[in-house]
């Protein structure tokens, strides 16, 4: 039996893009206990949306919950309000939302993939993935007008149409990105060092994923078939070539591969949506104030995002609740650390692609 050491990890650490603090108790470099704290960036966004802002302003507030999945927050909220107020969004706007949402998923996934390469010591591969990610960042900027905070989705539809010029800018970039992603996939499938480091490391079994209610790519990498795009069915994904990506290994490598494969599926969905864009309006006018309750389960890049809204017939909501994907995976992440070597902590942590700004709100 070795001597026990307490090792703090975070709140600021080179491997962490955002602040979270773990306190690991280790024995011979094996983790025996862990405590977690993640409330460093609580900004009171829910309170602000229930006290300061009108419900029509809220899409632009909740988009600031997270930089990487801002479109998911705005879309989840707008869909919840549209459900509550019985607003029918034009089909063209639905397709445009899908395009923006899937482009956002690609850039978020590639961000996670690049960071995982970085913590594995592959600086060059990190730079390469970030360079390829620029293609999708350009697509988002051309399509929505902004690189990160798009403010593209609004209650009743979207703020911007897809013109012929934009279509012609997007199409070659998507083709190029697809080619580069296939090359990247080959690297992840064949690279000896990455396989040695990631395969069989940080394994979450399907049973464990179910027990701790894992969501998104974390669940799907463990063979747990759950995706709000299927289960909540908010958009017609089936008609655009969506298919669920499932891996069964449950390790760091599988979590990375789910993101790479899902990015390829998203490219296909975006191309199909652009080629089959219905004609018509891109938004409808919204009148009145919300009264009653509704919720939406939205598949953000990191997994299930819940928006619950409660209105009382006034312009300011009675309750807005945001449950983010990282909120749901912290319990399984905490459990996973037990009996893992401390040296694997950066890789395991980043393989979850944690977003603490989302979680603390």
């Amino acid at each position, binding site marked *: 039996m070795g001597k026990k050491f307490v090792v703090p990890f975070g709140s600021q650490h080179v491997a962490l893009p955002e602040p979270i603090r773990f306190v690991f108790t280790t024995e011979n470099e094996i983790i025996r206990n862990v405590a977690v704290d*993640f409330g460093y960036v609580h900004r009171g966004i829910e*309170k602000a949306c229930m006290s300061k802002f009108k419900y029509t302003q809220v899409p632009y507030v909740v988009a600031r919950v997270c930089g990487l999945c801002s479109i998911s927050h705005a879309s989840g909220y707008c869909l919840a309000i549209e459900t509550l107020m019985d607003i029918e969004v034009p089909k063209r706007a639905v397709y445009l939302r899908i395009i923006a949402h899937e482009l956002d998923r690609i850039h978020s996934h590639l961000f996670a993939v690049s960071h995982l390469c970085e913590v594995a010591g592959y600086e060059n591969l990190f730079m390469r993935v970030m360079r390829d990610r620029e293609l999708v960042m350009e697509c988002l900027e051309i399509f929505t007008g902004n690189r990160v905070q798009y403010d593209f989705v609004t209650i009743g539809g979207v703020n911007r149409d897809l013109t012929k010029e934009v279509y012609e800018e997007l199409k070659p970039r998507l083709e190029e990105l697809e080619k580069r992603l296939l090359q990247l996939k080959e690297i992840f499938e064949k690279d000896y060092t990455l396989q040695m480091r990631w395969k069989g490391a940080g394994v979450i079994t399907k049973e464990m994923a179910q027990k*701790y209610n894992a969501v998104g790519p974390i669940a799907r990498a463990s063979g747990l*078939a759950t995706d709000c795009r299927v289960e909540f*069915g908010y958009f017609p994904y089936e008609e655009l070539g969506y298919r669920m990506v499932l891996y069964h290994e449950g390790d760091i490598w599988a979590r990375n591969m789910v993101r790479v494969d899902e990015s390829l599926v998203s490219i296909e969905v975006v191309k199909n949506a652009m080629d089959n864009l219905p004609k018509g309006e891109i938004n409808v006018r919204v009148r009145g104030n919300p009264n009653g309750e509704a919720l939406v*389960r939205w598949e953000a890049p990191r997994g*299930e995002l819940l928006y619950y809204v409660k209105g009382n017939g006034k312009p300011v909501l009675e309750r807005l609740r945001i449950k983010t994907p990282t909120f749901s995976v*912290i319990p399984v992440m905490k459990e996973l650390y037990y009996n893992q070597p401390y040296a694997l902590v950066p890789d395991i942590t980043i393989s979850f692609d944690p977003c603490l700004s989302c979680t603390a709100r």
Partner: protein
Amino acid sequence: MKNFQEEKITPDQLREKIKSFYKEDEWHFITINGTDTGKSIEVKYFFAKYGKKEPVYALSLEIDYDQTLPSITDLIPSAWIAEEELYDLLGVKVEKAKGGIFLEPDSPKAPLRKSFQPKQK
């Protein structure tokens, strides 16, 4: 238009109700939501079925501000995070919840209560 299925229960019935239907391989526990109604706290437990296009199922109960809510972490291990959030942001006393995860010691207490008004600049 409410788009989820809701069942009203009392706090005493919570644990038995969850025991009666919850199976890990069938049900996905989404989260717990608390709302300050001005008279009490309304608490909802949200669940969804894996792989099924069915409405979300919610167990709904009301508790007084000073009442203690039973913990469900022995039935659903991942629920600790939602219980901690209820404790921190709404000041709901939940068995086993210690607080201090979502807010720092010098943060306002229970900011999602109606009685808490943010300072206007």
